[in-house]
């Protein structure tokens, strides 16, 4: 143990002398801080948008009160009035944005058919979406392995190549102790950076003091340990530094780029999901066809779903709102199986990726962090289900006005249901990810230990 600490303390000196590595650590620290800034700024921007929505609703109501100064037909109000289903971010979302950049944080809803509104989002810069998020999770999952590779590709090979290892191992010190001190120093350095950034990120994002802090840190520590284990395996093969560097970069490319890409292609082929646009077009066709269908046919189909309105007056006019909303409603009904299949297909893809992500700790950790931050697909699907229920409640609010022919007064605006939804973390997913990562780490360390046992360290 004494020798371990001597070697460990000298590793610090060796590190300080390697200016390139010091610079790289500094750059990674700056990247991490930028990642935190990027994530918190993005979530703050979303929060500001969400905070502005009630004001938009108030203005909309004020305009409607001017447009309809007296009691009005609820059909007009339902058509012109805009409500919002809002998806509030969890504070952790700032550290792992997940799908919050591609999925909307709110949905603008009117009394019309739901499905096309559910998938209508604000325009976003496709180049920005393509480049992805530069949040703290990105820095930890994709950039930290690069630092570990830079620090560890020449674990023993540099001393061997420089001829120092013969003198070192001529002393009464086990090669395993030398290796352990080197790994421990690198682990300390990497973890100091990762935990510092995580701590700063948590404070900056204002995360609640709960068990998720420990889970995030455990994922971070295990992920760093995984990459150091990979470096150990490569070091145990005792190849030249250049070969080690290429091998480690190859592993990085494989686990961080190739496996995720292949997994994406494979899962898309194995779990085909109907395109959202097909669903939207089908619904639009159904609604547009509603104008031409006999009104009695439309209403009978509607009354089969809502028998409570069957006793309302037969429609003889050329246009009435309840008929209009009935065929809007039937548009949703017509695509309901597709909508369900679409959501289930996405969930099945997600489940399959979750099962297969043992193949790539990078995907596993990214998925686990997203689940912890409630920014993953299940969170978005839960929001969509919540928005659907909210739209149902809007219908339930307006239909009595429409079918009972009750006039909509200014006082009724205040009775309209409102919506709020905050994601809940998928902690079961995170814990499964943690367990899988632990298994990966144990497996790779076992391989490294086995290799070192089989191939004793040659100092020359």
């Amino acid at each position: 143990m004494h020798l371990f600490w001597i070697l460990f303390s000298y590793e610090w000196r060796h590190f300080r002398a390697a200016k390139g590595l010091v610079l790289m650590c500094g750059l990674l620290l700056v990247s991490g801080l930028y990642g935190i800034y990027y994530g918190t700024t993005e979530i703050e921007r979303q929060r500001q948008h969400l905070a502005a929505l009630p004001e938009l609703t108030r203005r909309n109501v004020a305009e409607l009160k001017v447009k309809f100064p007296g009691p009005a037909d609820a059909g007009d109000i339902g058509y012109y009035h805009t409500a919002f289903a809002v998806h509030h971010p969890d504070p952790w979302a700032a550290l792992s944005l997940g799908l919050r950049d591609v999925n909307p944080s709110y949905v603008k809803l009117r009394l019309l058919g739901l499905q096309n509104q559910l998938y209508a989002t604000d325009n976003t810069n496709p180049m920005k979406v393509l480049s992805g998020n530069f949040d703290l999770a990105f820095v930890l999952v994709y950039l930290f392995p690069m630092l570990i590779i830079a620090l560890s590709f020449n674990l023993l090979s540099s001393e061997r190549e420089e001829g120092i290892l013969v003198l070192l191992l001529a002393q009464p010190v086990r090669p395993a102790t030398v290796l352990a001190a080197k790994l421990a120093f690198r682990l300390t350095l990497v973890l100091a950076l990762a935990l510092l950034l995580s701590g700063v990120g948590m404070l900056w994002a204002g995360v609640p003091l709960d068990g998720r802090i420990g889970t995030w840190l455990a994922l971070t520590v295990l992920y760093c340990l995984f990459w150091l284990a990979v470096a150990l395996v490569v070091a145990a093969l005792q190849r030249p530094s250049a070969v080690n560097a290429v091998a480690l970069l190859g592993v990085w490319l494989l686990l961080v780029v190739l496996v995720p890409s292949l997994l994406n292609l494979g899962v898309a082929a194995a779990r085909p999901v109907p395109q959202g646009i097909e669903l939207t077009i089908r619904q639009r066709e159904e609604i547009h066809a509603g104008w031409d269908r006999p009104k009695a046919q439309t209403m009978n189909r509607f009354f089969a779903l809502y028998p409570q309105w069957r006793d309302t007056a037969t429609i003889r006019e050329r246009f009435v709102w309840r008929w209009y909303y009935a065929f809007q409603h039937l548009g949703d009904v017509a695509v309901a199986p597709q909508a369900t299949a679409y959501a289930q297909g996405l969930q099945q893809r997600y489940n399959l990726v979750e099962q297969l992500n043992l193949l790539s700790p990078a995907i596993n950790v990214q998925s686990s962090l997203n689940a912890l931050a409630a920014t993953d697909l299940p969170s978005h699907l839960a929001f969509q289900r919540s928005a659907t229920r909210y739209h149902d409640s809007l219908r339930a609010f307006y239909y009595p006005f429409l079918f009972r022919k009750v006039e909509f007064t200014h006082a009724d605006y205040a009775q309209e249901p409102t919506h709020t939804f905050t994601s809940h973390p998928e902690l079961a997913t995170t814990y499964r990810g943690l367990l899988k990562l632990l298994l990966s780490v144990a497996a790779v360390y076992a391989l490294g230990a086995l290799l070192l046992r089989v191939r004793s360290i040659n100092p020359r």
Partner: protein
Amino acid sequence: MTYLLEAKQLRKQYADKLALRGLNLQIAPGEVFCLLGQNGAGKSTTINLFLGFVQPTSGAAFVNGLEVATNSLQIKKHLAYIPENVMLYPHLTGLENLALFSRLAGFRYPESELLTYLTDAGLPPEAVRRRVDTYSKGMRQKVGIAIAVAKHAQVLLLDEPTSGLDPKASNEFSELLRRLSGQGTAVLMATHDIFRAKEVGTRVGIMREGELVDVRPTAALNAQELEQLYLTYMN
């Protein structure tokens, strides 16, 4: 008699070459045994086997009565090693390198003592606090000598230790070896330098193709006779 270094039927087969063919060797305390031979004769393999850097195919090497293969850590407390080309941590000073290797060997010296070891080994006082990457090969060799001496080992394994040293430093090194052997240190030195071997050795062994083909006490030969003997075997 207790030998500090002993090889019993030591054999080393590499994938494509038989490097050592049943070496038998005993070196007593105070003896300076010089191994002469061409490149590839098996000198460095012998030293590597005593250091435990390679495992014998058969036979055994012993340091101070301990079998190297099963006591690889323990035996390193008894021996010091100076390679042909001493390489040190380039960003540390000579003083810091000596402090590091001494601490690994179990000695924590005050700075004044470290300075003494370095200057006794012939390193100029003004160089001890300079980074090693500014050193010449000879200066690094002197730090290597200081590291070996500071370890107070009973056994010294030397692989062309005077390589890169100027004649004055080489003579000082010979003097150091005589002093250490006088204190009971056993020395095994692989060298091409017949005259140095004659000068400091108590016995010389000539190796050829992995075999120790001849062993003579140096006192029984003059330099010319030793050279003639060596050339006879080499031819």
